[in-house]
């Protein structure tokens, strides 16, 4: 954490670039040499292109543009291609110069260096020549082929986004999806509801089911149904078809009245209450609990809370309603939390807290923007080009629909999450976290764990997810997917899958790269490995529990009401 934040620079952008400039003041000759090299490259690019144009006898530029429509089109298209080539190469030279100047800045500390790298990449991405019509030859060609209709559609897309998404470029055609119909459509019932969550119990699809139910503590950043997208990609449905009884939390989208809901409420009123309800309905002593991302951090906190020996007067460890558990792309140790660290400085947290003072929550558009900035090419500029310059309709991707179905985050919870976890890493620190009167120590947890990380995960880097091994004293099996934060988890087994995974037990004291070096890569999805692990632990099979119970009657059909808010 960087001390002494500047209130006018919450994300430390200017601060970092000023530091960058100051470090280069120690080597002005080196800086000048790099700049000159880049300028020479750019100049060479321009001169070479001019030479090509002058020497190309077939170039439309041999003739004047006003020689008929087709000649005019060819002239402009040729100009667009040449300009694009020059600007693309110049842009690459400039971007490379920036990147190298940052990477090689003498004496710049890693934190400021990474901030410079991140924000210069944002500027570089935004200024890519292909983002602008006349320097995107494909867009120019499309315009000519459609007699301008592509630009007309592009303008309509832009106008719609100004009206409907506050200017954020749409990534998906929202009219193509309906939650409960072609998303979050796995049949089930809401069997419990409190101010924070609805608990969904999915209907069985097999005659016999494993005795121990599975309870999903889903993330509450965005809606719960990332694990219940289109039916063929639904982890809930797949687990149900393997003979498991599946419950899932669907979180309330909080409003101003919930500004004082804290992280401990998500842990106890959310996760614990869901687990106790599932236990009651299934008639079992314990469940298998699964936490995903922030839901996983909440689950890990709950597991430590349940394991606190001080909770019982006799000092004995209380019986846990969770027999074994799973974490998907979960951080418990926030030492190196990945790209989100660019947004979690002291100043940034203070700014977020100021933003939340008025409404009592952080609006979903803020979190959506932040996550898009972590993957700007795929989640911003690709859609700007396709939707506005080419006039394409937004995609029909269920993942992108979910990605834009953002949620509000209550003030007190988010302040705790950012300060105590991202800034202070309290869950694993000596000082620790006290939650609802109990000191959380991950080392007191006794239940075996299955943990999943993803190689391309930029939100929860897999080597940091793997750190859970350092803090637990339980048997751990780890699966690593070749994909990113979402695709690595939403990863249905398929004969056509080109994805890979590695699965294996992790001995205490093993470093992530050492573990990976001893694992053989396997084709496809880790879901099958996990199902085997679960089946070995979830008891014998019997008749499925009925939907709900006397104490927890069915309230409505899945996906419930909260998901629609």
């Amino acid at each position, binding site marked *: 954490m960087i001390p002494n934040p500047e209130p006018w620079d919450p994300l430390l952008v200017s601060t970092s670039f000023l530091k960058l400039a100051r470090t280069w003041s120690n080597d002005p000759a080196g800086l000048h040499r790099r700049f000159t090299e880049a300028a020479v490259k750019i100049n060479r690019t321009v001169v070479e292109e001019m030479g090509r144009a002058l020497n190309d006898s077939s170039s439309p530029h041999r003739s004047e543009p006003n020689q008929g429509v087709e000649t005019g089109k060819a002239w402009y298209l040729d100009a667009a291609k040449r300009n694009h080539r020059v600007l693309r190469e110049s842009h690459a030279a400039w971007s490379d110069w920036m990147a190298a100047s940052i990477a090689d800045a003498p004496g710049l500390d890693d934190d400021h260096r990474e901030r410079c790298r991140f924000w210069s990449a944002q500027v570089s991405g935004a200024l890519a020549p*292909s983002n602008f019509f006349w320097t995107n030859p494909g867009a120019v060609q499309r315009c000519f082929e459609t007699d301008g209709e592509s630009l007309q559609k592009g303008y309509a897309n832009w106008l719609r986004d100004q009206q409907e998404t506050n200017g954020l470029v749409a990534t998906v055609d929202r009219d193509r999806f309906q939650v409960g119909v072609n998303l979050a459509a796995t049949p089930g019932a809401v069997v419990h509801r409190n101010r924070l969550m609805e608990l969904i119990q999915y209907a069985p699809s097999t005659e016999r089911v494993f005795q121990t139910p599975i309870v999903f503590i889903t993330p509450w950043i965005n809606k719960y149904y990332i694990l219940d997208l289109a039916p063929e*990609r639904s982890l809930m449905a797949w687990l149900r078809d393997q003979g498991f009884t599946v419950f899932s939390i669907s979180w309330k989208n909080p409003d101003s009245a919930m500004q004082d809901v804290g992280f401990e409420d998500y842990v106890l009123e959310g996760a614990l209450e869901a687990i106790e309800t599932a236990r009651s309905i299934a008639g079992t002593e314990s469940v298998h609990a699964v936490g995903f991302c922030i839901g996983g951090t909440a689950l890990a906190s709950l597991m430590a809370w349940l394991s606190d020996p001080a909770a019982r007067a006799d000092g004995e460890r209380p019986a846990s309603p969770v027999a074994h558990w799973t974490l998907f792309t979960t951080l418990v140790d926030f030492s190196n939390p990945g790209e989100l660290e660019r947004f979690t400085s002291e100043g940034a947290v203070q700014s977020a807290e100021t933003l939340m003072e008025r409404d009592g929550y952080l609006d979903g558009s803020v979190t959506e923007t932040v996550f898009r900035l972590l993957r700007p090419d*795929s989640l911003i500029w690709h859609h700007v080009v396709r939707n506005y310059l080419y006039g394409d309709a937004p995609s029909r991707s269920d993942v992108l629909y979910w990605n834009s179905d953002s949620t509000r985050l209550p003030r007190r919870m988010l302040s705790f999450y950012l300060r105590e976890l991202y800034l202070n890493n309290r869950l694993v620190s000596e000082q620790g976290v006290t939650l609802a009167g109990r000191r959380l120590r991950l080392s007191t947890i006794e239940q075996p764990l299955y943990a999943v990380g993803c190689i391309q*995960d930029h939100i929860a880097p897999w080597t940091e997810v793997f750190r859970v091994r350092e803090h637990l004293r339980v048997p751990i099996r780890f699966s690593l997917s*070749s994909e990113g934060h979402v695709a690595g988890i939403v990863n249905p087994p398929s004969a056509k899958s080109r994805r890979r995974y590695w699965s294996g037990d992790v001995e205490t004291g093993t470093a992530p790269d050492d573990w990976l070096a001893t694992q053989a890569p396997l084709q496809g*999805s880790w879901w099958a490995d996990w199902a085997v692990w679960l089946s070995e632990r979830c008891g014998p099979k019997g008749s499925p529990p009925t939907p709900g119970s006397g104490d927890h009657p069915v309230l409505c059909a899945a996906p419930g009401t909260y998901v629609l808010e």
Partner: protein
Amino acid sequence: MVNAVNIDTLSACIKELFPDAADVIIGSETLLDDVPGWDSMSAVNLQTYLATAFGVTIPEEMLSSETSVGEIIEQIRHG
């Protein structure tokens, strides 16, 4: 139309979708991870693009970093 898809067609598609790949020689053996600009969210965008261009929906799990351009062509042609 899908049977006519070949390396030149798909190379043009990839270069349109990933402008930074303009100077990259794309062949059947080129992996998606070799395409400049490819990241963990690119598969979704590529799937949408190919569905619009060829009317073929390629499963997202087929569009991984280690998928080759040749494999994509085969999938478009034969499903």
